[in-house]
C-alpha cells in the first residue's frame, strides 16, 4: 500500500464572498504524477494557491504527510517540502537569473538540486546567470521558474500551466525535461489545459469543472469522451 503524500478533503475555497472550489477531494501518493485538467476558470490555480498556503483554509482540509496543513502560511508550507512553478512564471524582476534560483533554494532543504544541477538541466541559464530575469525569452523564463522551484528540493512539486504562452518547440523541450525532474523521487501535480499533454505525463488525472471534481481516473484508463464530457460538461 503506497504512502499518501498529499490528501485534500472537501476543500472549499473563497475569494471574499465568491466561492471558487466546492468540496474538492484529491489524493497523491509518494512518487506519483497527477494531472489536473480543466477549462479556463475551472479553479485549477485556486487549488494550487490553496495547497501552497497562498489561500488560507481550514486545517483539516489539506493533509501533507499525514499532518493537517490547511491553515499554514505559504512560507511554512514551503518549509515542509511543497514548491510551485506558478502560473505565468512570476519571476522576480529585480533579481538576476541566478538570484532567482538562489532565493528558491534559501529554505535550505537538502536534496539533489543545487545551482550546478539546475544549470546542468538548463545549460542556457548558466550563460545568462547574471542577466535580469526579465531579459530572457518566455521559454527561458519558464526554465528559471522551474529551476527556482527545484532549488527548494521539494518532495511535492506543483506545475501550474507551464506551457501557457510558449511556442510548441519550447513546450516540447520543457516537457522532455519533466521525467528527469520528477524521476528523482518527487511527487508532482501538473496543471494543464492541454489534455493530451497532461494525460501523457501523468499516472492519474483529475478533471475540474466549475470548482468541482468532474472526473478522476488512471491516465491510461480514462477515455477521451469521458474527459471531454468532464472538461466541458457536455458530450
Amino acid at each position, binding site marked *: 500500500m503506497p504512502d499518501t503524500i498529499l490528501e485534500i478533503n472537501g476543500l472549499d475555497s473563497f475569494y471574499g464572498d465568491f466561492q471558487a472550489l466546492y468540496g474538492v477531494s484529491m489524493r497523491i501518493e509518494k512518487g506519483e504524477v497527477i494531472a489536473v485538467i480543466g477549462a479556463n476558470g475551472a479553479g485549477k490555480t485556486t487549488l494550487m494557491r490553496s495547497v501552497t498556503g497562498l489561500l488560507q483554509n481550514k486545517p483539516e482540509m489539506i493533509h501533507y504527510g499525514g499532518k493537517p496543513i490547511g491553515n499554514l502560511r505559504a*512560507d511554512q508550507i514551503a518549509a515542509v517540502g511543497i514548491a510551485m512553478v506558478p502560473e505565468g512564471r512570476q519571476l522576480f524582476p529585480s533579481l538576476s537569473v541566478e538570484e532567482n534560483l538562489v532565493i528558491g533554494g534559501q529554505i535550505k532543504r537538502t536534496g539533489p538540486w543545487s545551482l550546478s544541477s539546475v544549470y546542468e538541466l538548463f545549460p542556457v541559464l548558466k550563460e545568462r546567470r547574471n542577466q535580469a530575469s526579465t531579459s530572457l525569452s518566455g521559454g527561458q523564463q519558464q526554465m528559471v521558474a522551474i529551476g527556482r522551484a527545484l532549488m527548494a528540493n521539494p518532495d511535492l512539486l506543483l506545475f501550474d500551466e507551464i506551457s501557457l504562452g510558449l511556442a510548441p518547440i519550447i513546450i516540447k523541450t520543457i516537457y522532455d525535461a519533466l521525467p528527469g525532474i520528477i524521476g528523482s523521487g518527487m511527487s508532482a501535480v501538473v496543471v494543464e489545459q492541454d489534455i493530451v499533454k497532461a494525460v501523457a505525463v501523468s499516472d492519474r488525472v483529475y478533471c475540474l469543472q466549475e470548482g468541482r471534481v468532474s472526473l478522476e481516473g488512471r491516465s491510461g484508463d480514462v477515455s477521451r469522451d469521458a474527459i471531454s464530457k468532464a472538461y466541458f460538461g457536455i458530450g
Partner: protein
Amino acid sequence: MDWVNAIVQGILLGGLYALFAAGLSLIFGVMRLVNIAHGDLIVLAAFLGLTVTTTLGINPLFAIVIVAPLMGLIGYGLQRVVLNRTLGDDILPPLLVTFGLSVIIQNGLLEIYSADPQKMSAGAIETASLNLPGGLNIGVLPLLMFITAVAVIGSLQWIFYRSAWGRAFRATSDNQDIAQLMGLNKSHVFGLAMALALVVVAIAGIFLGVRTSFDPSAGPGRLIFGFEAVIIGGLGNLWGTLIGGIILGICQNIGAQINPGWQLLAGHLAFLVILAVRPRGLFPRIDG
C-alpha cells in the same frame, strides 16, 4: 570665497539630509509604506542618545553603539506588532497609523523630556576644523558626518544588491506572494527592513542632536528634508538620495548666503523646481 564656502558646507550638510532620507527610501522601496513618523523617530533617537550620553557620561558619538541596536529592535517590534497590520492594497491605513504614531512619539517625548530644546555635546571635535588652501575651512564634525553618510549609503546599497537580506527585500518588494512561496515570511522580512531603517535613523538622530539643538516637535521638519532628498534624487535610488540631500543642502546654504531668512525657502524652492521639471526625480530607479 563666501560662496564657495557656502557650497562646501552645503555639501557636508547634505550628508545629514541623506541620512534622514535613507531609511524613508528603504522602507518605501521594500513595502510601499510612507512613514509619516520617520522624523519623530529621528528625534526619538536623539533623545535616547541624550539619555545614554548623560547616564553613562560618554561622548554622544559613542552612544550610537547603544542607540543603533536599540532603535533596530524598536523598528522590528513596531513593524511586527503595528505596521504589518496596516499593509495591504489600500495605502491609507499606513499613512493614518504612522501619522498617529508621530503624534504619540511627540507627546511621549514632551511628557518625558519637556519642551525645552536640548543639545548633545561631542566635545572638542565640534570646534575642530581643517584649514584648506584658499581660505576654505572645513569643520571636522560636518566632515565626519558626511563621510558617515557616504559609508551608510554605500553599506545600504551593498546590503540591498549583494546580500541575502537584500535579495529577500527585493523579492518581497517585487511579489509578496511568490516571495512567501520561497519560504520568506514577509512579516519578518518587513520587520528586518524596518530594523535596518531605524538603525540608520539612530545614526541620523545622534548627528542631528550633536549638530543642532532639538526638541520633541523637531520631527516633522526632518521628515520634510528627508522627503525632499528622496524625491529630488529619485525614488528607489540610494545614491540618488545622497545627491538629493546634497542638492538640498547646497540650495539651503546658498539661500542663507543671500539672506539668512531664505535658508529653508531656498531648499523648498529647489525641491519644487525639480519636481516640476523632473517629476520622477533626477535619478529614478536603475537596478543593479
